[in-house]
């Protein structure tokens, strides 16, 4: 397995064990079934509790039955899951970084007690509702709103492109609180079986097919006022969750690219044309050399990001750079791997084209590539291009 400059040799024993367990699980339980799920446009939902049993949801958090692993161990987990499929990593990212994290960081004790243990085991599934039909890259312009009525909040609005909303038990919905001064963005825990909640599925995606995506419709949905996340107000709420998830994506992209590389390397050494393996041609070797180099430099960025996160020195801009670079790298390299597989490369029997199509989503969600460019531009010049 590609680890060209031996970064994994410096992992501690716990981190290596996490990597090995995740790798073995993906190899044996997930890879054999992902092709069919991809074609059918389904997620293997029977794995959801299994992933929980293994502790794959928010393992970097502590307490509430969660293991509290290092950030590197968490990153390695995301890397191995995304080597399986971006849809598998998305499942873990949404549950862990986008739903459990805000409850953990901003929830009341009651909310934590109620939700974290059963979300950790996968008994309860969560989703994260930020994007709206008219507001994607600029979520602060959101229209979804809450109004206070006695001991309740009443929610109205609609969210779209929400991973797992059709199968979720609870949604973290970000909405403007119209009853408060300056209508700040607040987080609300909305059980999906409440009156007025609808979660239509989005079909016919051509990317991230092995992942369930839907909308959240909110029509006069009454929730107890205790369902608001008390600890955060403003865009910092959703953005800080996204920082957590993007950290995992920076690692995950390395996994997807590595899986493409390994598939291409194996194929090139096996496939014979003109009387020998195609890997003996300089053109093919150049592709492998470039792929390995790109993956390795992205891997270095991911490791450094973990160190900064562990020390509490990681900034959202660091994460923007890593998400931007690593996902672009994986998107470009998956295409090269696909091309090395010739006609076989366009089938679901091999992973590169599936990864390639998935990475179009990964390039777009959690802040598009362009938006991360603007974040970096602002950080480097002091001038925001998006305001």
């Amino acid at each position, binding site marked *: 397995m590609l680890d060209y400059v031996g970064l994994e040799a410096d992992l501690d*024993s716990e981190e290596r*064990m*996490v990597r090995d*367990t995740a790798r073995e699980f993906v190899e044996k339980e997930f890879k054999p079934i992902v092709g069919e799920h991809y074609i059918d446009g389904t997620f293997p939902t029977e794995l959801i509790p299994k992933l929980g049993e293994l502790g794959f949801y928010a393992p970097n958090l502590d307490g509430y039955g*969660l293991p509290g*692993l290092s950030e590197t161990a968490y990153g390695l*987990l995301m890397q191995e899951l995304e080597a399986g499929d971006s849809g598998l990593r998305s499942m873990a990212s949404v549950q862990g970084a986008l739903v459990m994290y805000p409850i953990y960081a901003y929830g009341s004790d009651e909310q934590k007690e109620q939700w974290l243990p059963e979300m950790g085991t996968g008994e309860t599934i969560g989703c994260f509702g930020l994007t709206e039909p008219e507001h994607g890259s600029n979520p602060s312009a959101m229209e979804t709103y809450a109004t206070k009525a006695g001991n309740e909040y009443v929610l109205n609005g609609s969210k779209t492109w929400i991973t797992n909303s059709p199968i979720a038990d609870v949604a973290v919905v970000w909405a403007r609180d119209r009853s408060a001064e300056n209508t700040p963005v607040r987080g609300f825990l909305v059980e999906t079986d409440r009156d007025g909640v609808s979660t239509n599925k989005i079909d016919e995606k051509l990317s991230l097919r092995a992942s369930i995506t839907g909308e959240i419709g909110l029509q006069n949905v009454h929730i107890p006022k205790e369902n608001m996340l008390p600890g955060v107000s403003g865009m910092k709420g959703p953005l800080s969750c996204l920082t957590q998830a993007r950290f995992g994506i920076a690692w995950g992209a390395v996994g997807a690219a590595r899986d493409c590389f390994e598939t291409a390397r194996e194929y090139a050494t096996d496939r014979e044309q003109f009387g020998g393996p195609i890997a003996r041609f300089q053109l093919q070797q150049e592709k492998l050399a470039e792929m390995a180099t790109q993956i390795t430099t992205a891997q270095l960025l991911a490791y450094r990001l973990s160190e900064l996160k562990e020390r509490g020195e990681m900034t959202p801009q660091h994460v923007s750079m890593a998400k931007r670079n690593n996902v672009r790298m994986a998107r470009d390299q998956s295409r090269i791997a696909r091309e090395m597989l010739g006609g076989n490369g366009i089938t679901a029997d091999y992973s590169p084209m599936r990864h390639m199509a998935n990475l179009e989503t990964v390039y777009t969600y959690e802040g598009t590539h362009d938006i991360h460019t603007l974040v970096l531009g602002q950080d480097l010049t002091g001038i925001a291009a998006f305001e």
Partner: protein
Amino acid sequence: MMKVLVTVKEVAEVEEDFVLDGTRIDDRFLEYDLNEWDDYAIETAVQLAEAGDDVEVVSATIGPERCEETIRMALAKGVDRGIRVWDDTLASVDLLDVNAKTEIFNAIIAEEEPDLILTGVQAHDDSFGATGVSVADAAGYEWAAVVNALDLDADAGVAHVRRELEGGVEELTDVELPAVLTIQTGINEPRYASLRGIRMAQRKEIAQQTLDDLGLDEGAVESQITLTDMYEPESESDVELFEGDADAAAASLASVLREKGVGAQ
């Protein structure tokens, strides 16, 4: 209180392409992993611990420091603590034979006094396939080999086992404790270590012991077996693929079998 001892071994797996260096295979071509059979033995022990009120599971291995990760994986799956035997004498031994392993495990058994010992049927690398039964004999324990189903009645001190014999025959036997069972693959479905388990395993004890600690000396690991040669046997294989639908393929198969003399009067 019941104590279960599981013997585990880290085995070498040889890569597809390798080079022989005298009677050894160079380390470059080896990968180390938990012996497959032992994974089933660990699962059996952990299931007993989960089903009983007061069951301690201890794993024992003979091997260098490198093996700690393998043992830790067992701890992550629910084994309570580990024992690893190693020292310079063991490191200098070329071939650790069944007698040597028996002496070492016997010394551990004398100290731990387990009620039940689970071993794999065999080790994937040297495949002596004898350690479990040999240990039982030396320790004066009852035994059952190649166990593929276990129903333990701890109160009565009896293990009801099903054993896999040659030719698809199975045998049901009752074995009185204390006993050694050599565990066959397929007896259960070994679990993955959970990340919570991996975390907890970092805090579990792996006690390192030397031959001296166990009251043994060099004599215990001297072997009457020497490895004289290692080579790759020449292999020849002919493959004939039958094409067409089931009828056509069956007809071709029948004529090949007839040619080979199968079913001739």
